[in-house]
């Protein structure tokens, strides 16, 4: 085979392959994150945390809670949401650490077992003292997703479409702010948290 023909075939092959990936790429639209002021009571729920321990939401009464919905093999919005929560946690003062709690609730309990969630949290540098990663059985999670208004649709093993919600819950257990979008601004979340902490 001569060099010219080889180079043509290689270029054609690479072009076809490039189109192939683009055709199936799970593109994230660069949408602005929408911030909504809401008042939605959150019902008590019990799930399982990254240590396989029972986690009762009611025990967070009196604290401001930031809740995000994500799953560990998510290829698009979740890494940005979890990175934002990490920024929120590192932006809290020592005093605020005692008054604020972070929750990441999975949308894929099939894959996200407690050990998987623990490794996920460690990779993001989460301080588990005030950040828990929750899973549970499908029925319990579905009640939580519904209460928060999160739609979840399984597309394949480890591949789930879900509402990219990050919510801020006040000390009385009511959702007061809902960020819907791929990359919530950590500074804006911190402002909301501090607003709800203020007497």
């Amino acid at each position: 085979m001569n060099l010219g023909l080889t180079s043509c075939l290689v270029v054609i092959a690479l072009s076809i392959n490039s189109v192939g990936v683009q055709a199936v790429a799970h593109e994230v639209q660069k949408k602005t994150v929408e911030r909504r002021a809401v008042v939605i009571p959150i019902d008590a729920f019990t799930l399982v945390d990254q240590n396989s321990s029972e986690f009762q939401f009611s025990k967070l009464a009196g604290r401001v809670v930031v809740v995000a919905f994500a799953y560990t093999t998510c290829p698009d919005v979740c890494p940005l949401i979890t990175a934002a929560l990490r920024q929120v946690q590192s932006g809290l003062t020592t005093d605020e650490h005692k008054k604020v709690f972070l929750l990441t609730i999975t949308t894929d309990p099939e894959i996200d077992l407690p050990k998987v969630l623990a490794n996920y949290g460690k990779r993001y540098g989460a301080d588990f003292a005030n950040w828990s990663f929750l899973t549970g059985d499908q029925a319990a999670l579905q009640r939580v997703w519904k209460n928060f208004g999160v739609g979840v649709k399984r597309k394949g093993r480890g591949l789930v479409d879900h509402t990219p919600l990050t919510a801020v819950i006040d000390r009385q257990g009511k959702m007061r702010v809902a960020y819907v979008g791929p990359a919530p601004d950590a500074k804006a979340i911190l402002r909301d948290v501090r607003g709800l902490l203020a007497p």
Partner: protein
Amino acid sequence: MTLSGLITTSLLLALAAGCGRNERMDLIYGQRCANCHGTGGRGDGSIAASLPTPPPDFRETVQRKSNSQIRRVIAEGKGAMPAFDPALRPSEINDMLQMVRYLSREGRDLAWWEKYDTLIAAHCSIPWESALGLDDAPEKKP
């Protein structure tokens, strides 16, 4: 070159370089990897700039990694990169290993392709997983 020499060279080459791309690899890579790593593996996916640590350009990093090192990162994750075990089956993780290898050498000069592409194409036309009995059982429906 004798026939046995050709087969041995083909196998060694394929082990070192991996096979070319196929539709299954493109599908998995497109669904799970391209948003961060980019369609060409240059670290320029649609969300790359927003990640805490930018993804690498495979051409600059993969050549220095062993297959087991790459497989471990795909399976266990690293930083913001998801751990794809157990969401992906072992054969799918191997597909992604090959894809990463493939994308890392897209910048290879034409002399390399001129020398080896026929052998790689011949090797990759053989259904090795089936021949070696490594096919996955079909996924169980919940």
